[in-house]
């Protein structure tokens, strides 16, 4: 099997930016982009579940999240990046070339870029599985349409929660935001939009402890964290935006992580604890978590990777037999692994 220059694991803004840069550097990256799903753990990552992206520079009128990601991918493909639509199942970074497995298929590369991103947390209730697709949704942009004239709720208090809630007011009669504190974490502009929206209501200091309904969602059991009092909010739709967890299970015991499971990179760079393995995007960032910062760190990883490969020549230089498919960079990055 031939050894590629780089394999990129994951295909959100970070992974695809590193793909564009490594492809333009003639490193013929292979991107293992993840698999279709209805959560943010899918090719393209979290932006695949968003509507209008208003803060990505270069799009003064805004752009749809999925469209932005299709553009990123097309740009990488234009420079020869190769894609596999699958999830990485195991990695072996103990020696070069590094090994990346997708089931029984194995891929080898002299360097790796990890950009597996983060995925949305769910509530962790037993009733979630039963009601998923029957009122409980992981994708406001997909499913908002079905709640025209309904009373629904969104759980969470950050930008994602407010963005979803504001979007859902286009369809629903009322959208109740359930948040465990009495103030919001979201940006000022999102807060103002939400507070000014006559369809929005707020339930503070509360969490959802159970869902009501056998075949269709009928309500959410809400507990006030200060008083302990429990009430049932009659809603037929529920959307959850309570935060994210990094997609790093693959790298447990291999790459250094912080207490929350995010990969640790050397400050000001994309270097991980293993030489030749780089990390970028939300998988190593729980501070900024923006499309533009992910893209920026993807560019850093590509440049770090390119320079590192120059300084640490190929373990198995491409031979004539390998010509044409001697990609030795693997980018692992999307929001899912």
């Amino acid at each position, binding site marked *: 099997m031939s050894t590629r220059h780089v394999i990129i694991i994951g295909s959100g803004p970070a992974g695809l930016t590193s793909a564009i840069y490594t492809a333009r550097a003639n490193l013929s990256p292979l991107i293992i982009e993840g*698999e*279709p*799903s*209805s959560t943010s753990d*899918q*090719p*393209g990552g979290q932006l*695949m*579940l968003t*509507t209008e992206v208003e803060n990505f520079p270069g799009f003064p009128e805004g752009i*749809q*999240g*999925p469209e932005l990601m299709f553009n990123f991918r097309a740009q990488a493909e234009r420079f020869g990046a190769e894609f596999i*639509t*699958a*999830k990485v199942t195991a990695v072996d970074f103990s020696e070069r070339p590094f090994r990346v497995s997708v089931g029984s298929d194995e891929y080898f590369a002299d360097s790796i870029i990890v950009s597996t991103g983060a995925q949305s947390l769910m509530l962790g209730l037993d009733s979630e599985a039963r009601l*998923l*697709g*029957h*009122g409980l*949704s*992981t*994708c406001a*942009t*997909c*499913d908002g*349409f*079905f709640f025209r004239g309904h009373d629904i709720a969104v759980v969470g208090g950050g930008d994602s929660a407010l963005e979803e809630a504001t979007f859902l007011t286009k369809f629903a009669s009322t959208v109740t935001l359930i948040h465990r504190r009495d103030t919001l974490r979201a940006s000022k502009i999102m807060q103002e939009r939400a507070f000014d929206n006559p369809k929005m209501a707020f339930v503070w200091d509360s969490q959802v402890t159970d869902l009501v309904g056998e075949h*269709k969602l009928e309500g959410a059991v809400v507990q006030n964290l200060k008083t302990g009092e429990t009430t049932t909010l009659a809603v037929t*739709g529920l959307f959850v935006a309570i935060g994210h967890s990094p997609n790093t299970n693959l790298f447990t015991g291999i790459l250094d992580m912080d207490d929350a499971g995010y990969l640790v990179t050397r400050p000001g760079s994309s270097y991980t604890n293993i030489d030749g393995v780089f990390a970028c995007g939300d998988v190593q960032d729980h501070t900024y978590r923006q499309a533009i910062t992910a893209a920026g760190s993807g560019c850093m990883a590509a440049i770090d990777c390119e320079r590192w490969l120059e300084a640490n020549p190929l373990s198995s230089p491409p031979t004539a037999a390998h010509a044409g498919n001697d990609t030795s960079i693997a980018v692992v990055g999307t929001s899912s692994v």
Partner: protein
Amino acid sequence: MAEGIVTLTAATFDEVINAATKPVVVDFWAEWCGPCKAIAPLLSEVAKERADEITIAKLNIDEHPDLALRFNVMSIPTLLVFNEGTVQKRIVGAKPKAALLSELSEFLGAAH
């Protein structure tokens, strides 16, 4: 529309489902749904590879919301498998091809 995939409308839905001689997988989708777009190429592949065993059809819920309501579709993509005119299976959410084929396995090979 992709080759081998039947586009359903409110006018043709019942006719196509009732006249079918093999299982029909109806993909309830919409233009704004990212996961729907992600599985579209997979469904085209399945339509081509399994044309003898099943029919793949698409229904745009934005254009035909009444049909989504009639079949209690509240999340897209949803795939409903019809056989002999009735719903035999409901698959909610985008899935990779292997998972999709495994969900459809009970309907594949029926024609043989």
